[in-house]
């Protein structure tokens, strides 16, 4: 019964229209992650506004609108911008130095067994140690200036970045390593052209974590130990306004910290990620 062969003609794709339905406008808008996030931010701001109005105590919890007002005034008078820039300047110094040192440590670590042990031991010891805890000592060693802030920033960046970079290097697949060596690459060429791009997902994570640590450390340091080198940063701005009981300005300071954090995360790191890892398919 079934012994007969049956061979069908295949209909070529051009003979039927490919079925493709456009998304409805609502679905299309929902696809854009920036819009979804913006919606979340608006909802949060609304909740803030309504809650603050119900509390109705500007000293305890100012409204979103009064915070925005203080933020706007601060921006216009330039005082917030100057304070923020003071913070960012110190931050960038510490961040850059921390990354450079982390690079150095990792290069030592991948080149020798003892270097690996050194890095592992050092990160195990110092990563859990809060940077703020060593600030009093740093101030005794380096004085009440930028140096001691940079020192604690290095401490907060170095171990996070080194740890992530190193684990990224370790997890580079053996095949890719062999491919690199097949081309005759060795030394710095091998690290720069094979290991660093291949470990880039971990490195970028390290940079993000390092950034967040540095930012927190700096604001906390400024809050606790106040002004350094004559001009305070955002932490000092918050502290100062708390003493003056100018709570909307305290919130404006906090808002600036959040705002800068959001910009760095969503513009800088996100752009790097889109242009590298997402394009390369290295992000799941």
């Amino acid at each position, binding site marked *: 019964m079934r012994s007969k062969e049956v061979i069908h003609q295949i209909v070529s794709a051009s003979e039927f229209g490919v079925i493709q339905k456009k998304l409805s406008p609502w679905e299309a808008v929902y696809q854009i992650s920036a819009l979804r996030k913006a919606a979340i931010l608006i909802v949060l701001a609304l909740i803030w506004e309504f809650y603050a109005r119900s509390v109705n105590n500007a000293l305890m919890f100012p409204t979103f609108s009064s915070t925005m007002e203080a933020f706007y005034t601060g921006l216009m008078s330039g005082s917030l911008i100057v304070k923020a820039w003071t913070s960012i300047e110190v931050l960038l110094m510490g961040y850059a130095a921390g990354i450079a040192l982390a690079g150095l440590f990792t290069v030592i670590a991948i080149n020798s067994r003892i270097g690996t042990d050194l890095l592992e031991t050092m990160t195990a010891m110092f990563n859990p140690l809060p940077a703020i805890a060593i600030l009093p000592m740093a101030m005794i060693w380096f004085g009440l200036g930028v140096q001691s802030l940079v020192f604690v920033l290095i401490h907060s960046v170095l171990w996070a970045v080194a740890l992530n970079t190193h684990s990224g290097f370790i997890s580079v697949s053996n095949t*890719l390593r062999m491919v690199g060596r*097949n*081309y005759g690459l060795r030394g710095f060429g091998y690290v720069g052209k094979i290991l660093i791009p291949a470990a880039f997902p971990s490195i970028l994570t390290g940079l993000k974590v390092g950034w967040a640590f540095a930012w927190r450390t700096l604001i906390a340091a400024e809050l606790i130990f106040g002004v350094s080198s004559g001009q305070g940063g955002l932490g000092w701005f918050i502290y100062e306004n708390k003493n003056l009981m100018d709570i909307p300005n305290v919130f404006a300071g906090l808002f600036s910290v959040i705002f800068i954090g959001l910009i760095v995360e969503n513009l800088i790191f996100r752009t790097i990620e889109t242009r590298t890892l997402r*394009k*390369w398919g*290295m992000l799941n």
Partner: protein
Amino acid sequence: MIEDPSIPLLDVNGVTLQYKTRDHLITATYRVNFEVLQSDRFVLLGSSGCGKSTLLKAVGGYLAPTEGEIRLKGVPVRGPGPDRMMVFQEFDQLLPWKTVKQNVMFALETSGKHKGRAAEDKAMQYIEKVNLAKFADNYPHTLSGGMKQRVAIARGMAMEPDILLMDEPFAALDALTRRKMQDELLDLWDDTKFTVLFVTHSIEEAIKIGNRILLLTPHPGQVRAELSSVARDCLLTDEARELERRIHNMLFVPETETETEVSHA
């Protein structure tokens, strides 16, 4: 390429390979001999654990023999180099941060074979050979497994190495793609007559791809036989089936039985 035809292109002479794991020293191959001539499609065939991949890596220069010597064009192999291009089984052998064209060009440029425009032309020439010209600007993660392997082959061939080392390049592909890739590889060989050392665990693939087949038995890998394959137009004939049966018997009928019989006699 070789001035003196009496010198084989690749000479593997009495090679014993050992490597260390955490608590063992493992002998992967024991005194293996073979010679690969210009334009050979030389296949190393054996089941897993026969050290065929380790042997290929030693030819690649990733592993030094504890005994014996590997010579390429009469010169002992010391370390990896672009004169022996590897094609791996793993799909992740392409650099994910480079496009298809950049992957091939990167090999040419870093090894110093070609620069700039010349590298680009050479890369495109081989990408066209593996029918991927349309995908030259794609990143590897957008390609299928078979396409990735074709890029890896194009990359290996574009370097025009003395010998192409292929480590089970089709093993991770589905059966249909695999057959297609085997045919394509043979077409490429017809085109450029490159020399290839090909590792596989499939008897069928060995007969199809190779003109010479080296059979390795496991634990540790030792040469069981070196055979000539059948002509390419005889692949579906009784001759090929007979060869397949012989190879199967040599690899899988336990030698120990016959040996014990002999020793008791």
